[in-house]
């Protein structure tokens, strides 16, 4: 297990005041918040910052953490000394909110797991009470083709589960899910009764799966519309041609490229986007690519072009 330097994570000195710690946390939390920052790794950073703050904002936890001394370095191998937290008492409450189950091994070895409150309202349910189980949320990645054709996928989810003694552990749970045709990135699939277990006659909560697509090297997706960049040779664009293009559904379409096609002038293939009641469109974006002139014959071909045209591409610059 690696030691985590929470002061370094927040970028504050060991003697920092509560106000300084709070300000540093807020600044980093805004920067890395996964709803705000879409960069890869932001969510990881956000969790680390949150974990550091959960310890340092809490007088008892901070005192216990400080007692381990200032000589530990971030990433150093670490085993908690025996009885290191003797005499400290924690009033452990909702760490992390919607991101439970994300503490590092280091945090858990020192402070245990955050307690998960059933029903989202806190408090220990008394025996004999009936209430509905918690709703769970998870993100899953699917292929763009699955949205075109519909699919059946077995997905693995890591769910924090609590046993009868209140111990929490992360368990892998496999679910066989039908992906409906026409689903789009950012949409949620609600699986009724697949969330947390209820109490008494309360029934289980629901599971919400937020859908996103695996990055695709060929297509870009905007809602229900799909974009495909189509490289064209200069003569193909100038004279017109017919090309075969692959569709995300797996078929091939024959596309007529009109003479005089310019880079960036989109061609719309109506209703070839993601299907739904109102299907999206597939846009083909021509991109004219120039072959390099390497052999003598190729150079002559470019020189012949120059002679054939009275082409002044920089006329407007008056250069």
């Amino acid at each position, binding site marked *: 297990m690696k030691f985590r330097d929470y002061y370094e994570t927040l970028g504050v000195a060991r003697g920092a005041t509560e106000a300084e710690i709070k300000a540093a946390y807020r600044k980093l*939390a805004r920067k890395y918040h996964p709803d705000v920052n879409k960069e890869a790794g932001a969510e990881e950073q956000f969790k680390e910052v949150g974990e550091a703050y959960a310890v340092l904002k809490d007088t008892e936890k901070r005192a216990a953490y400080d007692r381990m001394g200032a000589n530990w370095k971030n990433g150093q191998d670490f085993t908690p000394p025996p009885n290191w937290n003797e005499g400290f008492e924690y009033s452990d409450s909702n760490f992390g909110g919607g991101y439970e189950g994300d503490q590092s091994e280091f945090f858990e070895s020192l402070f245990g797991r955050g307690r998960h409150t059933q029903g989202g309202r806190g408090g220990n349910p008394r025996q004999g009470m009936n209430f509905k189980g918690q709703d769970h949320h998870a993100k899953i990645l699917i292929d763009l083709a699955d949205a075109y054709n519909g699919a059946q996928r077995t997905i693995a989810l890591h769910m924090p589960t609590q046993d009868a003694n209140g111990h929490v552990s992360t368990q892998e749970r496999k679910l*066989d899910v039908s992906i409906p045709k026409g689903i789009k990135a950012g949409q949620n699939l*609600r699986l*009724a009764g697949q969330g947390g277990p209820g109490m008494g006659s309360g029934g289980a909560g629901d599971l919400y799966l937020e859908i996103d697509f695996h990055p695709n090297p060929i297509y870009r997706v905007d809602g229900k519309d799909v974009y495909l960049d189509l490289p064209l040779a200069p003569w193909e664009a100038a004279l017109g041609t017919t090309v075969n293009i692959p569709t995300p559904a797996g078929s091939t379409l024959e596309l007529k490229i009109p003479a005089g096609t310019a880079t960036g002038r989109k061609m719309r293939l109506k209703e070839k986007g993601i299907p739904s009641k109102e299907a999206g469109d597939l846009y083909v974006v021509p991109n004219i690519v120039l072959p390099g002139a390497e052999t003598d014959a190729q150079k002559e071909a470019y020189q012949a072009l120059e002679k054939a045209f009275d082409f002044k591409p920089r006329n407007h610059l008056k250069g």
Partner: protein
Amino acid sequence: MTQTQITWITGSVVEEEVHMSIVEISRATRAPEDLIMSWVSEGVLSPAGSSPEDWRFSGESLKRAKTAAHLTHDLELNTPGVALALDLLDEISRLRNQILREKII
């Protein structure tokens, strides 16, 4: 030879097929109902219906409400702050999509 029968779980696409009550939104976001009411009064969410008991939230509201709940909890934003952040996030997403549409590799 035995065949294993897999039962595929079918869900409903929240954004297209589902309308949610304030109780359902509250449960899904773990945000208390009074907080959801304050988002409605600030225009963060626009349910159909005249009173909280009749409110019907479109599926699109769920994502907004989830983000609002995260921002409220994680950054301790107040309701006007959440409203402003969501508007700015919408604007960023609109601009990102515009770049994506025009991008040439």
